[in-house]
């Protein structure tokens, strides 16, 4: 008996993982859009907030922008090395990205600390409420990004980015039961079935070498996390001028 699901002709163009990340980013855009939009509307109604914005240090903010931009660059480098299958470099660039994310958070908390020591808190006034909410929300996303990157990094360290024997797929040893064949459609040669989509489910608990990558190499996830990381970066590119440069 054959257990398989065919995908439609046109659906192999984009992997499910990438699609999922794009939808995730779409929903995040709506969240930040709502928050930033609210800020802009109220900001326009309150020219006096410029005084508050004056308390923010543009040099520190710019430094942080630079750090984050650079981290996006290293993330791109990590992805480039995925194609070259250079595990060492991938690890190095992933680590660099995560470290820069941490530096960003460090500088951010230094700024927060400065505000607190001057008696400025989220409830001081509405500008600061927005400042702490927007940057805090962003910082949470940075933390999430760093976590994801570090997880991939550990995969890299343990050499788990690619399946043990490249190309053979995963369904080889230990056939699950009598009379049942599983066709991993990622290796299905019928050209009309491209991109095979349901793999994670198919492979999840197939016995064999411990391997949790679903049908695709873990390395592919570097691109997904990279997309997310760029998104986090872009949000900051919006926040920085809106908060710091409107004094």
């Amino acid at each position: 008996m054959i257990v398989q699901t065919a995908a439609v002709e046109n659906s192999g163009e984009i992997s499910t993982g990438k699609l999922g990340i794009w939808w995730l980013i779409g929903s995040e855009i709506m969240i930040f859009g709502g928050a930033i939009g609210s800020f802009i509307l109220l900001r326009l109604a309150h020219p006096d907030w410029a005084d508050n914005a004056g308390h923010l240090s543009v040099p520190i903010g710019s430094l942080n922008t630079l750090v984050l931009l650079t981290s996006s660059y290293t993330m791109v480098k990590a992805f480039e090395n995925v194609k070259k299958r250079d595990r060492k470099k991938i690890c190095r660039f992933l680590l660099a990205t995560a470290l820069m994310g941490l530096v960003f958070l460090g500088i951010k908390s230094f700024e927060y600390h400065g505000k607190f020591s001057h008696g400025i808190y989220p409830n001081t006034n509405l500008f600061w409420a927005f400042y702490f909410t927007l940057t805090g929300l962003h910082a949470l996303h940075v933390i999430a990004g760093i976590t994801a990157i570090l997880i991939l990094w550990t995969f890299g360290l343990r050499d788990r980015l690619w399946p043990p024997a490249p190309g053979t797929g995963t369904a080889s040893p230990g056939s699950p039961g009598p009379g049942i064949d599983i066709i991993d459609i990622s290796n299905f040669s019928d050209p009309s079935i491209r991109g095979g989509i349901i793999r994670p489910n198919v492979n999840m608990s197939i016995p064999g070498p411990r391997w949790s990558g679903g049908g695709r190499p873990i390395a592919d996830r570097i691109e997904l996390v990279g997309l997310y990381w760029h998104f986090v970066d872009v949000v900051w590119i919006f926040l920085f001028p809106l908060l710091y440069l409107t004094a």
Partner: protein
Amino acid sequence: MEGNRHQARGNSAHHSHGDEKFIWKYVFSTDHKMIAKQYLFTGLFMALVGAFTAYLMRWQLAYPNTAAPGWGVVTADKFNMLVTMHGTIMVFFVGMPVLVAALSNFVIPLQIGARDMVFPRLNMLSYWVFVASVVCLLASFFVPAGASACGWTGYPPLSASQEYTGIFWGVVLWILALALEFASFTMGGINYLATFMCARAKGLTYSRVPLATWFLVGASLAFFFSVGPLIAGAIMLLLDNVAGTGFYLPQKGGEPLLWQHLFWFFGHPEVYVVFLPGLAAVLEIIPVFSRKPIFGYRTMVWSMAVALALSYVVWAHHMFISGMDPRLAMPFSITTILISVPFAIIIFCMLASLRGGSIRLATPMLWAVGFLVTFLIGGLTGIFLGSAASNIYFHGTYFVVAHFHYTFFPAVFFGGFAAIHFWFPKMFGRMYSERLGKIHFWLTFVFFNCTFWPIFQIGSGGMIRRIADPSQYRILDQFKTLNVFVTISAFILIAGQIVFVINFFWSIFRGPAAEANPFRANTLEWSAASPPPHGNFTAAPVVYRGPYEYSLPDRAEDFVPQNEPPLAQAEGTA
């Protein structure tokens, strides 16, 4: 069909270790069908809670300040809490799980011929986050000062500071519950959309996708692009409560109207999030039971797309008299009225689908027709509210209450029951009882109308929403008997659901075994076994035609399943 059940296990290929453990099969399942059932049962349980709150409110409105059996006197503070919780539960904890989550989970993969969702573990996670949300909401009844009492719309400043209501934990938990719910349905939405885009069977092009799937996907899209700003707004509301910020507090420079904009920017599409799945079920049922192609397949899909697009630019019709610039009223009045055009098209296409059919009023069809009949009243009365001028009088009265119950109730319960009965054989592998189904329908249909039709009259007589004690209002004295009538009808309406409960559970365990395709329908889910095994299909389905080829003139059979090979080819291969 015990055999089928066992076969199901055999087919779930990736469970190499023989019998699945109970906990993985029924609790932390990644099977979309099991998750659908989990959502369904959770939603139906919450419906009980929601109905109980409705019972208490209706008691108080008919017999003010007397002890409601099983609870006691519904005092003003309790009434406000009940109104709030009733609205929140019915919309977010009944409508959303039963219609959006249960239906999307069950129907989308089966109708597109997929083995499962593309992210099964995310699917499981989304359910458990939803459970956390339910726990949060239910817990809020038991914290000091009780649950939130700010209305399901939670307008600040009332909801933004403890000083106005004396309620802190209730509001915080209410916001958290919504936040978790939104997170859960965002995960769900990603799954439905990605599955829809990536996992369709071979040959199932976008113009052959059944309307149910289209409309379910539409609902997820509507949710997806409207909820973000409200999440941001909810974070701000939470901070106002816990961190002393003043986003919505004018004395701190904040803007109360900001919340209303964010809420209704979400709120109007949300109406469609609940409505489209109901419609989805009905659209699937009508052709099957009138043995006729659905009229204007393409037109319907496009109408839905237009309605979705428009739904993002109508939100301020909830705010005509909120104190926003009155010059905004006309543009929003126009968009609102425009949105009635695509829905008019959909409704008229459905009517045209009946024409010339061969209609059998089995239980699912009864619910579908009941949906049409009642929802129409909701839609038509909406015009009174969408026109800014008449909104001045009707806004905030029981006319509105009647109107949105005539939209929500048909969507959630008529649509929901239509879906439950229609897919019951597929879901549980057994048939429901026609007789009980019909009794249940007529009880619900009659007493739903007896409950809510008089409310239009009470509303136009000037009764306002969310009042805890109508006996304070001289103008309402004339409606005393009518209010009692409404309340008694509501009790019978609620009690009538017992018939459903009996039918439902009896049939799950004792109903006659169902065939794979008991209604002789075309779409792919009916080509799988009833119930489908883990993995759904024994062989990858291939689709050759559209979903509504009923009563083709040159055929003896009056249906042609989507996956039946064309005649010529079948002969060729034979």
